[in-house]
């Protein structure tokens, strides 16, 4: 395997966030501006230097609103990736490509929303679902039968996965317990100092069988931003660069948002596998070269499926990989050390990218004792997927 293309050309030089809460008490627009300024401050870059923004959909604050509010005089690069959380890591790819190609020098990525006190994704279809277009046509085949929320739409996959491989609700619950354990040691986490037991997980109410409430991520208010510049420039900035070694997107065969039910094996995620293959090729390493991971955990079963599709264990073996302690801070592959979206906050995956940066810097509140040279951070599934590999500077 050889490194290729833009690998290593750009780095995340700054991260910044608001608090993660259930009611921010201020506008989503303000949250966006706050987190962008915080990330620029972390990077040591003046706000007027920003010349690019890259976002992903379900972001309610357009780049021009943030640029206007912050007095950013001009933007030469701006893009928006579809599919919500599935696209969470793709704006980092866009930013790295833009920087590597020389069309922008300072690209900011952000997600800011009042997803708990405002519109809740878990409550039902989002406002844009009622726009009668090809984009929403897929709802014809699921919504009228009761499958209205992401948890409900993922349940078929989880149920079949359990049936095929003998996984149990407890196997999903171990992800929740682990996340809350990590969050308990992270002062920024909503569930700081509030760990749970497997029994708590089992006793939590059903949402969509086989998913209990504690299999589902939180709904959160907050903002998280990232600053991407060339690796060369990042070396002169205050924090160690989190070098973007690989970044990829993926759509698989017969892909439908949340409901690719016509595939032969609905419990497989070919779009994730496609992203994995690209990442390994770009970064010049394989799953064995990944020291820690932030795996998108809107719902616990997807963490198990991602462990398999990324090749950390065999298909159907994730339950044993997890039970054997591999995901613990001192394990083979520490996962979601910030507490994940189950424990820290649900900022649509962007807070997970920030944790990836901290792991590379060595500043996670649950920093593994071993050297962390490469971190995998993933976007959501089962939708069009994205992920990145961050690495230390070499």
């Amino acid at each position, binding site marked *: 395997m050889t490194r290729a293309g833009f690998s290593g050309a750009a780095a995340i030089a700054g991260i910044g966030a608001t608090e993660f809460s259930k009611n921010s008490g201020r506008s989503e627009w303000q949250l966006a501006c706050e987190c962008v300024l915080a990330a620029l401050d972390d990077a040591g870059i003046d706000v007027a230097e920003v010349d690019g923004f890259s976002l992903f959909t379900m972001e309610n604050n357009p780049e021009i609103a943030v640029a206007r509010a912050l007095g950013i005089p001009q933007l030469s690069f701006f893009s928006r990736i579809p599919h919500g959380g599935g696209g969470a890591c793709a704006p980092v790819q866009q930013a790295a490509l833009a920087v590597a190609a020389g069309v922008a020098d300072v690209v900011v990525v952000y997600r800011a929303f009042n997803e708990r006190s405002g519109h809740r994704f878990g409550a039902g279809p989002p406002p844009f679902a009622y726009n009668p277009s090809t984009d929403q046509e897929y709802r014809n085949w699921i*919504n009228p039968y*009761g499958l209205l929320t992401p948890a409900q739409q993922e349940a*078929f996959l989880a149920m079949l996965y359990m049936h095929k491989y003998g996984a149990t609700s407890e196997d999903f619950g171990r992800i929740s317990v682990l996340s809350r354990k990590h969050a308990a040691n992270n002062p920024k986490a909503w569930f700081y100092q509030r760990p749970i037991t497997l029994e708590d997980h089992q006793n939590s109410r059903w949402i969509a069988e086989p998913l209990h409430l504690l299999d589902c991520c939180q709904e959160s208010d907050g903002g998280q931003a990232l600053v991407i510049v060339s690796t060369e420039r990042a070396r002169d900035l205050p924090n160690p660069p989190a070098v973007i070694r690989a970044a990829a997107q993926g759509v698989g065969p017969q892909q439908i948002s949340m409901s690719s039910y*016509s595939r032969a094996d609905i419990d497989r995620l070919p779009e994730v596998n496609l992203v994995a293959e690209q990442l390994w090729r770009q970064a010049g390493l394989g799953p064995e070269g990944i020291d820690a991971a932030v795996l998108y955990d809107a719902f616990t079963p997807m963490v198990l499926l991602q462990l398999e599709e990324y090749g950390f264990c065999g298909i159907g073996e994730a339950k044993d990989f997890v039970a054997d302690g591999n995901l613990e801070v001192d394990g083979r592959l520490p996962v979601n050390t910030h507490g994940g979206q189950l424990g820290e906050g649900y900022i649509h995956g962007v807070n997970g990218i920030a944790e990836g940066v901290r792991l590379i810097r060595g500043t996670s509140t649950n920093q593994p004792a071993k050297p962390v040279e490469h971190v995998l951070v993933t976007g959501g599934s089962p939708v069009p997927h994205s992920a990145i590999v961050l690495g230390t500077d070499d």
Partner: protein
Amino acid sequence: MNEETVVRTAVPRLVVTQDNEFWFRAAREGRLEIQRCADCHVLRHPPAPVCPECRSFDWDTVESSRRCTLHSYTVLHYPRDDAFDYPLTVGLVDLEEGIRLVADIAGVDRDELEFGMELEVGFTEHAHGEILPQLRRPRGSRS
């Protein structure tokens, strides 16, 4: 469609297009039709304007036997929508013709659900106002 029943549900109105209108019309008439490529005869669902196998835009339909087996399922508890009764059982079925379909399941207890069990597609007016498939035990089987 009864507008009064639609008002309180979060279920979006159907997005009816030239590609799928046949399916909803057939459903209102109690038939399950499946789109078929007129050239290579491969069936497809959900409907789409072109065959993903041979790229032909020509298509017709075949009527399904409505016999199917349960591929996967879920039982929904929260959140609750006024158009449904909860816990709500929803199934993903393999139709005899080889395509998959999602519909709610009526008349089967939670404990009786089994992967691979035989079901049948019926049609009913859902509380959101649309006449659409609903899964049930095959006629003549134990209730």
